[in-house]
């Protein structure tokens, strides 16, 4: 069984890569054929689930190596199976659904690629035993969701929503990586099974608070918790099947999964409890509250998802066996009804052309099956019997009531949220399906029997599963117990049942439903109030704030880049020179106290002095002359002066080279100079003065550095080696030449290569303008490549 599972999961990715080609063959049937993979996975997982012993969790090793020393290994236990079953099961229905829903879209091949990647990485994330690999899959889900949300990329809203989702979840992904590495360092293993087996809890480690903050950041960004919730309503820009999948079983639930998976390692501390409870509470209430003020069906559902995710986070935070059990069951409940409702929203949109619930009415007669299915899902959402949602809600209430110290705060908020959800559920059904006498009938694009079977299958199957699981909840007992064993290490016999007596929990439930109905009756003033609040909230409209801050950041970056990278060559140099000056000054200051053994300076010879004076005058003349020719000649004079200086100090070879190089350079310069513009003074007086001061400063500092450097002998010079071995080893008398052609022959070869390159460059630069070359030749000048080496 295990091998089949591995192959199937690998198959998802393979299929994902080849889908654009497969689409060319299969066309509209692509979704149908692809849906077999998740179906098979679902069956495999179901078989595993049925065979799973109460406290059994095992690893399926695969030969796929992700990172050195990190095989991809699947961890099978209650928790991963619950998530895996939902992901693959709903994934199957979604693929079937999109086969028809996406029929008129362009680039369907790409759509399926993204969707398959999304599904595969979600499954991989849930099952992977290794935390690093889990992080990798986590990131792939973010990237895949980016492409899916922005699938209609010709619409700006879509692109913006996609970017928002990517930035927020990507930020969470980074914190996850950080946290995972820290956990791995502390525990010595990245494998979940090792962590669980050794009962490692990092609560006492000094880095615990850092890790926990990072993990919570990762979870609440992915799971759209307040204040990061706003990307989720934006994400409904995605095609409906994607929204359905994203909300029901994947993506947003990944954060909840992360919290549940790491609960044994991190959970149970005061910080864990309160941070999760507070975030969850706020999110739960705000989501449910704002849902009633929306008109767009998908948007309403998105806000109820936020509320549901808040509930799950809250339950994980409450941190009792009951609350964990409630969270698990509620995850199933939510996946079943939310997937169905989104698919219904897609059907309604396709048939009527709108998603505005207030623009629709009386659809029951034309869409009876859809209506019944929706009713069942909404009943589950409102938490009424006989749906599984009822059990979920009862468990939640029970878990919250057991809290001794904070139940007075959490219970009212969560009852409030549920009241709103009941009202929302009734409102959706009422607006969509009941007939209003004063309004005209809605014209449908399709009749219900024209809706393809594959599109209806999803919501129907999900609704029926909801009823079945509601009536026979004991089917879940074994899986939930197993998951609880691995989460809390508690041996716990889960006994789910629809009816558990007339007790406090039931009384609160009845109160919830009655108040929900009351709110529905008073919906007009309440909705008005909520809309007003939303408008007031819009001042702090988080998506806009987010976009603005991103834009401002980009603007700031552009501004600072423009300031630094201004494109003015001389200001770059100016900056460079000033910094160098500052550094040199600093270093000279620091060396002030160094002991200096001054070697006696050589005597001043008159002829050398005159040489220096002449050269200096030539250099200064180069700067100030207005004639180009004079500048070059003056430059040559200074170059010759330097050559003489070399000669004076006994460097014969240097002097010869300098003479030759200077001559060649002057020849080239003279040849080119008359094709160049005359000197012009382009800068104003003030600039010249500034540059002059800076240049003088540089000159002074260089002088100081040269004087200092003269006394500095950090290491024994290796010149002695050359002097001793030039003749004995290399058989040459001229030591400088021997160094160049023998000891450092490779350097010289590099030098020749440079010259060759330069010559090629010069040649091609001239070559490309044949006309000019001809003109040059007419004037009797030679080819302008420089002579080869002077060695």
């Amino acid at each position, binding site marked *: 069984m295990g091998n089949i599972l591995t192959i199937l999961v690998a198959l998802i990715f393979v299929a994902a890569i080849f889908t654009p080609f497969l689409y060319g063959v299969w066309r509209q049937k692509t979704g149908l054929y692809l849906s077999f993979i998740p179906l098979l996975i679902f069956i495999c997982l179901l078989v595993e689930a049925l065979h799973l012993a109460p406290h059994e969790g095992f690893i399926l090793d695969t030969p796929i190596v992700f990172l050195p020393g990190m095989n991809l290994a699947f961890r099978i236990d209650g928790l991963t199976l619950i998530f895996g079953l939902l992901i693959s099961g709903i994934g199957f229905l979604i693929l079937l659904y999109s086969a028809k829903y996406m029929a008129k879209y362009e680039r369907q091949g790409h759509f399926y690629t993204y969707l398959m990647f999304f599904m595969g990485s979600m499954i991989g994330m849930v099952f992977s035993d290794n935390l690093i690999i889990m992080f990798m899959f986590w990131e792939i889900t973010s990237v895949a969701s980016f492409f899916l949300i922005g699938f209609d990329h010709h619409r700006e809203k879509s692109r913006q929503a996609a970017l928002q989702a990517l930035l927020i979840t990507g930020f969470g992904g980074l914190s996850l990586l950080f946290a995972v590495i820290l956990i791995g360092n502390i525990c010595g293993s990245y494998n979940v099974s090792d962590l669980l087996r050794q009962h490692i809890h990092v609560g006492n480690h000094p880095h615990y608070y850092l890790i926990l903050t990072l993990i919570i950041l990762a979870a609440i960004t992915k799971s759209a918790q307040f204040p990061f919730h706003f990307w989720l309503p934006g994400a409904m820009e995605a095609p409906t099947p994607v929204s359905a999948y994203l909300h029901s079983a994947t993506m947003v639930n990944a954060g909840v999964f992360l919290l549940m998976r790491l609960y044994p390692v991190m959970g149970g501390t005061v910080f864990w409890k309160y941070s999760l409870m507070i975030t969850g509470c706020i999110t739960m209430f705000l989501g449910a509250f704002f849902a009633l003020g929306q008109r767009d069906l998908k948007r309403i559902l998105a806000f109820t998802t936020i509320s549901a995710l808040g509930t799950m986070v809250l339950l994980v935070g409450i941190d009792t066996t009951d609350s964990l059990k409630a969270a698990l069951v509620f995850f199933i409940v939510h996946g079943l009804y939310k997937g169905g409702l989104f698919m219904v929203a897609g059907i309604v949109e396709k048939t009527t052309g709108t998603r505005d619930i207030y623009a629709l009415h009386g659809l029951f007669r034309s869409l009876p099956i859809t209506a019944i299915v929706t009713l069942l899902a909404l009943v589950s959402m409102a938490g009424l019997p006989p749906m599984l949602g009822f059990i979920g809600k009862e468990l939640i209430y029970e878990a919250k009531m057991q809290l001794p110290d904070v139940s007075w705060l959490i219970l009212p908020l969560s009852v409030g949220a549920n009241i709103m959800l009941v009202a929302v559920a009734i409102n959706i059904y009422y607006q969509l399906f009941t007939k209003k006498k004063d309004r005209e009938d809605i014209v449908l694009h399709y009749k219900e029997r024209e809706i393809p079977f594959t599109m209806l299958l999803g919501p129907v199957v999900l609704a029926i599963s909801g009823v079945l699981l509601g009536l026979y909840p004991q089917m879940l007992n074994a899986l939930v117990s197993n998951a609880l064993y691995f989460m809390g290490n508690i041996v716990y016999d889960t006994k789910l049942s629809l009816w558990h007596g007339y007790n406090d929990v039931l009384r609160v439930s009845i109160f919830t439903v009655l108040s929900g109905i009351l709110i529905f009756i008073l919906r007009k003033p309440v909705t008005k109030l909520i809309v007003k609040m939303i408008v007031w909230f819009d001042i702090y409209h988080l998506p806009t704030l987010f976009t603005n801050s991103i834009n401002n950041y980009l603007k700031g970056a552009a501004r600072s880049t423009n300031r630094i990278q201004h494109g003015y060559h001389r200001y770059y140099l100016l900056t460079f020179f000033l910094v160098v000056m500052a550094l040199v000054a600093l270093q000279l200051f620091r060396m002030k106290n160094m002991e200096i053994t001054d070697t006696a300076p050589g005597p001043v010879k008159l002829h050398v002095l005159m040489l220096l004076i002449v050269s200096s005058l030539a250099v200064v003349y180069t700067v100030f002359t207005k004639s180009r020719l004079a500048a070059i000649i003056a430059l040559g004079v200074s170059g010759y002066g330097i050559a003489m200086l070399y000669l004076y*100090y006994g460097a014969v070879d240097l002097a010869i080279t300098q003479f030759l190089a200077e001559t060649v*350079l002057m020849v080239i310069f003279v040849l080119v100079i008359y094709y160049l513009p005359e*000197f012009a003074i382009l800068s104003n007086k003030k600039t010249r003065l500034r540059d002059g001061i800076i240049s003088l400063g540089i000159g002074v500092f*260089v002088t100081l550095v040269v004087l200092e450097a003269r006394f500095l002998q950090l290491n024994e010079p290796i010149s002695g080696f050359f002097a001793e071995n030039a003749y004995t080893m290399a058989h040459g008398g001229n030591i400088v030449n021997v160094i160049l052609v023998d000891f450092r022959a490779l350097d010289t070869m590099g*030098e020749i290569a440079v010259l060759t390159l330069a010559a090629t460059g010069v040649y091609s630069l001239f070559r490309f303008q044949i006309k000019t070359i001809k003109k040059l030749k007419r004037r009797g000048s030679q080819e302008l490549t420089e002579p080869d080496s002077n060695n």
Partner: protein
Amino acid sequence: MEHLIAIFIGLLYACGVYLVLRRSIVKVILGIFLLSNATNLIIFMAGGIKRGGVAIIEEGAEVADPSLISDPLPQALILTAIVISLGMSAYILALKYRYFDVTGTHDLDQLKNTDQR
């Protein structure tokens, strides 16, 4: 004597930097020549110059006395540097020629994009 040469190098640097900071590209190139010459001199000075004999082993002898000859190592380094700077200078000049040919300006501030005139 060394102090004077150090001042001379400083002067070369000052003039080179001043020229490099100009807007006219011809002057910038002149500045680069000056700077490379000056830098060679610095290396030469850094070897700890003393007036010595030429770094050539005399006929018949096998070994030269390091204290009698001028230091051969910086000379070899500078020699390489001179040749390379010659190659570079030739290339820059050719480039400048083409550059003026294509853009029609010698003002670096006018050269803010790669568009031709």
